[in-house]
């Protein structure tokens, strides 16, 4: 199996500049074209263990084109094209890799309706999946990154894919998006992990991505069954708190966090119900990552 890491930087650049780099992430293949060095370097750094699919088929076609001409020198920008259309404003060229990540999310959340797509991180240990749905700023990605750095398998950082027919969570393990203060927190907490260069002053603040451990990438075809839904909230100085939520209320909150819940209709309702049945849900407040991880480690060991 050919991986991105088996290609040289020159080969990656040639594919991006030619017919495209066909990158497999979870169940999807994305054809990525770009003349941006930031995009190419980011792919080399973050996606080295990911398969390159040479079948010629892609679910998504993305083109990130960096400015040419005089604009190449004056505040260079990168433009995003999807199937020939430019649905978004250009961004500074230094944001190229972050833009790629956001556009991949946009492609999945807008069209992968064979799944119920929940805005949530999902990690797994001992066969038990832990879903962390939460709005931006809740500490979801920081907690997810910390768990992954301590042996939990990453299934998703942003987009949890729940099979409509089998209610299993499908891995879509891509770099973990960290923002602002969480970047330095995770660099200190996981000093051996790899991070992209921070993209400054994006619409989401300062953004950097943390590389997914190879062990998680290697299990990209292995789904997991949900055991817990946890709504995390980081609060400086707060004591660890795990409060049970009635499952019907948790159902409603997960549905609110699903991009395509309404679109999937009765099938989405049944899939979510079956997924939640047999699981347990909690509100979770934390301030210390070690305490949080010890708690979840214990839960994963205690559950049969």
């Amino acid at each position: 199996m050919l991986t991105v890491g088996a290609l040289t930087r020159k080969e990656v650049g040639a594919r991006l500049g030619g017919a495209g780099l066909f990158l497999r992430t979870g169940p999807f293949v994305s054809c990525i074209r770009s003349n941006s060095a930031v995009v190419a370097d980011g792919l080399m750094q973050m996606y080295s263990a990911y398969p390159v699919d040479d079948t010629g088929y892609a679910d998504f076609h993305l083109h990130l084109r960096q400015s040419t001409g005089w604009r190449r020198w004056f505040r260079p920008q990168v433009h995003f094209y999807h199937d020939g259309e430019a649905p978004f404003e250009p961004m500074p060229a230094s944001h190229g890799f972050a833009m790629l990540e956001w556009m991949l999310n946009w492609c999945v959340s807008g069209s992968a309706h064979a799944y119920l797509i929940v805005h949530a991180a999902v990690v797994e240990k001992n066969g038990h999946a832990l879903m962390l749905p939460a709005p931006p700023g809740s500490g979801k990605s920081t907690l997810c990154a910390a768990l992954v750095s301590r042996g939990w398998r990453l299934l998703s950082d942003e987009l949890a894919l729940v099979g409509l027919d089998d209610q299993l969570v499908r891995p879509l393990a891509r770099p973990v998006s960290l923002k602002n203060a969480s970047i330095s927190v995770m660099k200190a907490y996981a000093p051996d992990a790899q991070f992209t260069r921070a993209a400054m002053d994006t619409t989401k603040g300062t953004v950097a991505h943390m590389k997914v451990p190879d062990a998680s990438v290697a299990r990209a075809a292995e789904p997991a069954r949900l055991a817990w839904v946890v709504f995390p909230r980081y609060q400086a100085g707060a004591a660890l708190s795990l409060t049970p939520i009635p499952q019907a209320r948790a159902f409603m909150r997960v549905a609110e966090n699903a991009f395509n819940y309404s679109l999937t209709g009765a099938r989405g309702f049944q899939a979510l119900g079956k997924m939640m049945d047999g699981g347990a849900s909690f509100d979770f407040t934390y301030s210390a990552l070690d305490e949080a991880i010890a708690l979840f480690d214990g839960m994963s060991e205690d559950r049969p």
Partner: protein
Amino acid sequence: MSRVWCIAPGQQLAMWGWDDEFVLYNDLSGDTHLLSGDSHAILTRLQQAPATLAGLVAAFSGGVDPDDAAELPDTITALLLNLQNLFLVDSRTAGLAEPC
């Protein structure tokens, strides 16, 4: 004349329930509703057969505290009106054909 209550035509009443709370998929609106155990009980009863308020009161008066029994018709009426607002139940005057 008394009114007969029934499940609104087109509703399948797909539900999941845990700990006396239920979520229900509304086939007519596409919404999902969080329902109490009492609302669930009324829907389940009406799913078996349309019923008048008196019939529902009789059906549910068995386990009710005598002190609360007098309030049961008002309680059930309020629940029925709420369910009607959600297009989950409907009613007709007894003797008329539609919609129940």
